[in-house]
């Protein structure tokens, strides 16, 4: 199956390879690092890329390469956790709203309207400021804006599945609603769910980077890609452009990989959305 996917969707396979690389990097960060990512070295501040420091050092003399390797961990954990949290919450709301219908659906949809009425970053910004800086809170702040998007997608797919004959059959057998909803309908929304998750993963990573850049995301000492840009950016960019270039490349690569993979998965799993 994987071989066929690679043949039919070379771009998607490339995206998958990039994501695999980032997952492995995050997993083996301790083995891949060349220096301690949070150790400062006073004599080596703002060093250009060299043999000792492959990607140079920052204003505190920390090794950029090791920080990027560890940053993969932070980005991936925050990205995956917030995407899953938001999609699962939204998925449950969408399932109930689509299956039960009526007033519950109406109220749920209005609440989703409210959450969706603000740009993702604005909502995440207000939320993370109000929750305070910590990895948990960043995950929550990023997941909430994903909830309405997930609810929409799952609701619409539930609406069409609900009318299928096998669901009618289950109903006429006298099965309880909860059983029909969770055992018969839910498994059939897995395709759109996977598509949704891969599509949201990229934007979750981007929002994390933006929040950390603004100083409202992942706190020190965790090396986060977004935060690496914020500290270095304004003051040292002109003296040491590598401070800006490499973390940004890492963010772009991760998001690019998940976008490529997401597109290919969408074409494969959800042919109705092809090319959209």
């Amino acid at each position, binding site marked *: 199956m994987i071989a066929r996917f690679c043949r039919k969707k070379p771009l998607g396979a490339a995206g998958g390879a990039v994501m695999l690389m980032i997952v492995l990097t995050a997993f083996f960060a301790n083995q891949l690092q060349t220096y301690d990512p949070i150790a400062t070295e006073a004599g080596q501040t703002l060093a250009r890329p060299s043999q000792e420091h492959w990607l140079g050092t920052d204003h505190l003399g920390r090794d950029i390469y090791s920080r990027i390797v560890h940053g993969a961990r932070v980005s991936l954990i925050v990205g995956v956790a917030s995407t899953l949290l938001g999609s699962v919450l939204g998925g449950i709301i969408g399932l109930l709203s689509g299956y039960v219908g009526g007033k519950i659906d109406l109220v749920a949809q209005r609440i989703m309207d409210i959450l969706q009425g603000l740009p993702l970053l604005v909502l995440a*910004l207000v939320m993370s400021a109000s929750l305070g800086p910590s990895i948990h809170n960043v995950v929550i702040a990023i997941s909430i804006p994903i909830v309405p998007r997930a609810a929409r997608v799952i609701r619409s797919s539930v609406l069409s599945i609900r009318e299928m004959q096998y669901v009618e059959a289950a109903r006429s057998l006298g099965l309880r609603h909860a059983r029909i909803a969770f055992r018969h309908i839910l498994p059939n929304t897995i395709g759109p769910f996977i598509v949704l998750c891969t599509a949201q993963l990229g934007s979750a990573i981007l929002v994390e980077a933006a929040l950390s850049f603004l100083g*409202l995301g992942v706190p020190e000492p965790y090396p986060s890609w977004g935060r690496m840009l914020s500290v270095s950016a304004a003051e040292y960019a002109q003296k040491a452009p590598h401070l800006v270039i490499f973390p940004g490349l890492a963010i772009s690569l991760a998001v690019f990989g998940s976008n490529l993979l997401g597109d290919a998965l969408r074409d494969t799993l959800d042919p109705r959305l092809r090319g959209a």
Partner: protein
Amino acid sequence: MKTYLVQRLGIGLLTLVGMSIVIFALLRFAPGDIVDILFSTGGYVRPEERIAIMKELGIDKPYTVQYAEWMGQLLRGELGMSYNYGVPAWEVIRPKIPVTLELAVLATIVAVLLGVPTGVISAVRQDTTLDYVLRVVSLAGLSMPSFWLGMVIILGMVAWLGWIPPITYVSPAENFHMHALQFALPALAVGYRSSALITRFTRSALLEVLREDYIRTAWAKGQSGRIVIWSHALKNAMLPVITVIGIEFAFLIGGLIVTERVFNLPGVANYLVEAILARDYPIVQNLVMFIAVVVILSNLAVDLLYGFLDPRVRYGD
């Protein structure tokens, strides 16, 4: 049509009320209030002094009263006082609106000028190398943080042209040339990202339209390719694209938050971050509400435009 409009405005208003509750609640959850932040440099605050300040700012009252007061202010068209500046919030916000609006409009123009033609070319040359290249380029646009792109553009300008962007805001009256340049760069960085979305939608919409019968008829009549694509097909393909442009325009504010910061422009989005960090509630609540109003109105505008452009769309039936 009239009932439709009334209905839509009603739903919009309801959404705004709900949003105001969410925003209000979120800001009150925040650990540490303005008094802590005002005195974080001064060290110890005497309890009496603290109470006096809270009273002066009106944050000693119960939340329900605070919320009711805020709503009352909004209805009277007032925005309350900024805690930090001690002047009416509106006076702080007003001069920042044109900056953000100008940037959003410029970025949208960049996005459309870049996105629509690329989308058309990509659709017409479907599955050729050119199509793949354009699609990868546009996906790359969606993948780069626009603030980082902004930084790289600045770095490039400094490295190759030796030009350092002005550190402070230059008004158009002061130096129009500099002003234009100061806005063009962030507009390019943000617009590129939005253009990627427009490219994708244009491509898929056009691909769908190109399969329709009337297009085949146009080809069969011997119409030139340029006319078939740019006039017959694109006209129908533009409808979904316009929706994306409308949604993107409102959501640009999200992208502008960080970009305005990178380019140090005194816009609404940039100021939102400062106000959040300073716990300046009146400013934050009103700015976020302002953004929500812009989003709702631009969605409504897109819907109405839709009916105007496509006679098949009927409202309220």
